[in-house]
């Protein structure tokens, strides 16, 4: 199953919802616009973005004389795609590279590290994993299983050890073994916990100082996250200067609309998306395809 089909399948519910509106496409009246706004809100796009998008589309429709649902779909998909920030440097492609994965508890950081490590090794890139989540019970064991599955070395320390020290160790090991891609898992934390955010800032700065290769800090965010995702991204960005986003769990019915808002507000590119359960289910993010699938423009 290709990327587009996968997304379409995952996003089918939102497409159905939009189809209901566009079914009355011939008659573009007040109700149409109100329903459109509601639907975008339901996709977790956020009330503000939804309103802006609708207003813009409305103006455009008047200006360019768009009346059919197909025209409006196209215009909407393009309008949404414009909200995304393009990728300036892909830390997973342009090696050597070190990537730190951060995010709140349960976003899917450890799983993401495991799957991406496997993908990179399959492409022939020498990968090494750092287990800097020394806080959560059994996080290291979990990563260990992933490292084994992906046949990739893991550098870590015992539970309770200083995560910054783990980062130091893994970078040292990477230099010794000449690894091209270093993936570091960190402990999940709520963005409101200032102590833990400071700890993470230290981890990041130690890594940036020690690393000979470019370091990217990537926020992992769950597609089911609602408007709080913006707060999360903002806090993490303020504390750590993020380089990009990874959206996980796009395989459910959640539309991941919050990704549009984050990418737009914080000017952060979406580097990868997780669209399935199996080990190779991370995909490159294609804004145009994502938005076309979202609005149902086949």
């Amino acid at each position, binding site marked *: 199953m290709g990327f587009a089909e996968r997304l379409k399948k995952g996003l089918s519910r939102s497409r159905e919802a939009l189809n209901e509106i566009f079914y009355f496409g011939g008659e573009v009246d007040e109700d149409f616009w109100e329903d459109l706004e509601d639907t975008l*809100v339901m996709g977790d796009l956020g009330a503000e973005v939804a309103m802006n998008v609708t207003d813009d589309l409305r103006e455009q429709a008047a200006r360019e004389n768009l009346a059919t649902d197909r025209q409006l779909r196209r215009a909407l998909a393009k309008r949404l795609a414009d909200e995304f920030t393009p990728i300036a440097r892909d830390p997973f492609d342009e090696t050597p590279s070190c990537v730190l994965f951060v995010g709140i508890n*349960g976003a899917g950081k450890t799983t993401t590290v495991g799957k991406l490590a496997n993908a990179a090794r399959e492409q022939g890139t020498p990968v090494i994993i750092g287990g800097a989540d020394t806080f959560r019970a*059994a996080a290291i064991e979990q990563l260990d299983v992933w490292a084994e599955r992906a046949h990739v070395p893991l550098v870590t320390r015992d539970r309770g050890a200083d995560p910054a020290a783990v980062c130091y160790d893994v970078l040292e090991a990477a230099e010794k073994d000449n690894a091209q891609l270093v993936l570091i898992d960190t402990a999940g934390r709520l963005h*409101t916990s200032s102590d833990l955010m400071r700890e993470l800032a230290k981890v990041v700065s130690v890594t940036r100082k020690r690393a000979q290769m470019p370091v990217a800090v990537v926020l992992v965010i769950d597609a*089911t*996250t609602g408007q709080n995702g913006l707060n999360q991204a903002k806090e993490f960005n303020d504390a750590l200067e993020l380089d990009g986003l990874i959206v996980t769990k796009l395989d459910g019915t*959640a539309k991941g609309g919050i990704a549009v808002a984050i990418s737009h507000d914080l000017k952060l590119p979406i580097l990868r998306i997780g669209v399935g359960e199996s080990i190779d289910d991370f995909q490159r993010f294609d804004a145009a395809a994502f938005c076309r699938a979202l609005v149902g423009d086949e």
Partner: protein
Amino acid sequence: MFNSLSDRLQDTFDKLRGKGRLTEDDINVAMREIRLALLEADVNFKVVKRFVASCKERCMTSEVLDSLTPSQNVVRIVLDELTELLGSTESKLVLAQNRIPNVIMLVGLQGSGKTTAAAKLAYLLKKQKRSPLLAACDVYRPAAADQLATLGGEIGVPVYRGDGKDPVAIAKGAVQEAVDTLHDVVIVDTAGRLQIDEAMMQEAVAIKNAVRPDQVLMVVDAMTGQDIVNVVTEFAERTDFDGVIMSKLDGDARGGGALSVREVTGKPIKFVSMGEKPSSLEVFHPDRMAKRILGMGDLYGIIDAAQQAADEEQMARAEKMLREGFTMDDMLHQLQSIRKMGGLSKIISMLPGGERMLGQTPDAADESQLVRIEAMIRSMTPEERQRPKIINGMRRSRIAKGSGRTVQEVNALIKQWGEMNRMMGKIRAMANGGDMSPKAMKRMMSQMAAGATGAGKKRGGANPYNRR
């Protein structure tokens, strides 16, 4: 964009407050704001529609429009409706009396916090003198059973892992194990699953049928967005859960999902999970939550937090304080109690209008002042802490140097201690007099308040407690 729901509603009502009499247009403006705020709080869009419609209907009665304080009436109505939506009564765990062991099963999406919640629930039950056993039925996520075993070890609750392959067999085995080893409640932690994953949903049903849990609880992330409705609807249909544990409420998520879950499925929210510690599972109080959402403060929450922080040792300390006077050590202890309750900012945010105050003047919760005071007290010798009166000029400059503060700050601290000690003296005098009538208590309290604000003018004379 980042205002909390309470801020939004408060702004709206501040606008209304200026008006003597409300028109339908005013109500419409307020309702629009409420709608937007609720949407930004991730309340499901359909729930918002119904909520706003029923609020508006109640607000449009002449009783409200013509009343002298229409805006307060609107606030009251919104609060009522919100409480209603969250469920009117606090719900507790319902476990069959005559069944041993009782079984509780946890379900939910990946990463919602089931395993952590399982451990917290076990800890809670253990504190209630039950003897829980945890069953690790998540056989898919790597090391999930290890995680549960570690958490179980930390709180002293055994974990049944079975063969680590068949979740149904593990659940059954755990119940048998509980019977054999005299545990009276089994908490079944299951794997995270998507509501559209047919095979996994069937497995959840199979586990449920195998162990017939007293309670099936769904763990829901407070940060979930609009999709929560699809998720809980499907889970409710398939597993027919009895209640919800809302996790990660210690963040700043507005938890609009809580409103949606109740409205869409009719299932109550039983617990909220507020942090990393095993003790951070709290019973859900809809009225408190609604008040907090509306910026009306959570006074009960403060009292609860204070009660938890005040253990027996501290009661003894308070008694000693009364007997022997207030020392610097006592002051240090008080500072630490504030920390234990979650710091100044948490306490302020629980007060009426506190969230807004924090937003306007973030310095109000400047914890660094507390840190400085602590540093100064820690720079004192034990003798100085017990009898601050001996602190002379030389000692002051030594303390200032030791703590990296100025002598003026040390002076201010000692002055502050003096005031607190005087107050304590008054309480002591009262306690010694044996006069503990509520009336006297009240008088003393008002006097203390007056003293604190510097308005206490009646020195000596009429007031018997100043005679010392």
